[in-house]
């Protein structure tokens, strides 16, 4: 029992609940995470009355909310080590952020015959927006393959990065394989050819310490709800010089400088990309989530996650008939996707659910990743910093039990 982790758990009321009369063991953190008390109380306080539309009115509540919203932007800017606050665009999540770039960057820079290089093991959210953009622009997608252990084949990059490539889009950490991709190397190699890179950080920002200046990517996106923050929040980080050159994605209030029927001029960054009333309560909550995470003892948390990863790899690989996907131990986070011989993942998940274990089964919004390994359905247990090693041990025991029921 790790005392630090136990005290951390106390901050998450959702973890104290029972399901079907059994203590909840929540192992679906890659899908969404639970929220800590400071986030919950800020959201409740704002919903209850600290509520006034931002950037618009002179009254007290509007000023309060504008302050919370803009200070969340500052917090996030500091958290990801971005150079400028106006490079932080609030979106409804990682998906919206990728769609924003796909549309807006596409409009400005992509033409017929161009190529977008996309990783092979991406979430559908980092595939579909590029397909839509390619269809609109007459461009096409090229795939950056992975090897059998799930590693990106960066050795192929010199050939894949030809003059036709307009953008590279890869995940920092994939939601099926749970491996930290060598994104820094990808960015360096793409930049040698002046090709910008978007990093899907939906999982990466949770597990890695990210710094935009150091990473030097052109775009980085993530969702608040996977980072212990509110649902419907997220971030697009974009380098100023790209964002400046990109046209607005959506039109509406707040994103303009002046409007007339003859034509309008747009607000400067970041508001140019934040049309309409944003989810200012949620984004303020995201600020609170990031303050919460930043105040944790990073050494403790990282050591704990490392332990969970090692223990999970060892215990799971001892389960008879289990095949793990994403096996590069050096790059692994505590996210384990696997199949079990002769047993369907949906059956495993159904029985585990009855025992109180929340895990994911199916295609996990990454059909091409599963297809790469000849699979149609996997089981995934994804752990967060608040999961204990006891929970992991109990999970593996429960897994063995349900396997024997099903065989």
């Amino acid at each position: 029992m790790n005392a630090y982790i136990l005290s951390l758990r106390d901050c998450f009321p959702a973890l104290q609940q029972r399901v079907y009369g059994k203590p909840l063991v929540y192992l679906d953190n890659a899908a969404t995470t639970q929220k800590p008390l400071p986030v919950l109380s800020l959201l409740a306080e704002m919903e209850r009355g600290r509520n006034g539309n931002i950037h618009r009115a002179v009254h007290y509540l509007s000023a309060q909310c504008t302050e919370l919203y803009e200070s969340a932007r500052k917090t996030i800017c500091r958290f990801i080590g971005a150079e400028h606050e106006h490079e932080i665009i609030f979106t409804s999540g990682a998906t919206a952020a990728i769609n924003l770039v796909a549309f807006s960057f596409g409009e400005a820079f992509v033409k017929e015959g161009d190529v977008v290089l996309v990783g092979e093991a991406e979430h559908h959210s980092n595939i579909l927006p590029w397909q839509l953009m390619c269809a609109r622009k007459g461009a096409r997608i090229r795939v950056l393959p992975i090897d059998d252990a799930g590693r990106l084949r960066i050795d192929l990059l010199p050939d894949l990065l030809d003059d036709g490539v307009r953008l590279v889009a890869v995940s920092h950490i994939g939601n099926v394989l749970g491996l930290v991709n060598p994104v820094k190397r990808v960015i360096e190699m793409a930049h040698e050819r002046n090709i910008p890179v978007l990093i899907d950080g939906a999982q990466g920002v949770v597990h890695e310490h990210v710094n935009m200046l150091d990473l030097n990517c052109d775009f980085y996106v993530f969702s608040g709800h996977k980072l212990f923050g509110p649902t419907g929040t997220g971030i697009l980080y974009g380098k100023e010089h790209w964002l400046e050159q990109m046209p607005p994605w959506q039109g509406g209030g707040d994103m303009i400088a002046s409007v007339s029927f003859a034509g309008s001029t747009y607000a400067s960054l970041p508001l140019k990309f934040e049309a309409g009333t944003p989810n200012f309560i949620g984004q303020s909550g995201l600020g609170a989530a990031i303050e919460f995470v930043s105040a944790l003892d990073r050494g403790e948390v990282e050591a704990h996650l490392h332990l969970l990863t090692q223990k999970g790899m060892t215990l799971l690989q001892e389960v008879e008939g289990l095949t793990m996907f994403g096996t590069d131990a050096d790059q692994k986070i505590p996210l384990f996707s696997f199949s079990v011989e002769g047993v369907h993942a949906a059956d495993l998940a159904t029985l585990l659910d009855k025992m109180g274990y929340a895990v994911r089964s199916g295609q996990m919004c990454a059909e091409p990743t599963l297809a790469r390994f000849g699979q149609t359905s996997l089981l995934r247990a994804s752990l967060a910093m608040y999961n204990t090693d006891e929970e992991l041990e109990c999970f593996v025991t429960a897994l063995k039990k349900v396997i024997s029921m099903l065989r």
Partner: protein
Amino acid sequence: MSIAEIQKQIEEEFSFFTDWMEKYEYLIELGKALAPFPEERKRPENLISGCQSRVWLAVDVRDGVVFFLADSDAVITKGIVSLLIRVFSGHTPQEILEADIAFIDQIGLKEHLSPTRANGLVSMIKQIKMYAVGLSVAGK
């Protein structure tokens, strides 16, 4: 036996189980015991896709009576599928159309028929009813 009687029979069988574990063990048993689905009939038109598991459904008509064959790649789904076949097979299209399937709820498997499960079962029942509509129209 009528559709209603078969449902009653199933409800009785399930009433002996005292906990969820026994119930699921029984479903798994039923799933494993389901008559094999002919490989050559695993055609795309017989496939009902859910994100979680897949269900195959085929229909035969003999002397105005409908018989269903089904399969799933997940064994618990297959167990429930076998119950549905037991209820619906051997009846006329009209009887199938009029049937109200309350037993799923009664034996505590309602959550498996929730549209959020995406396991193909909801679509399977819809498909069974559609076949019955088609057959009863053709029969008139």
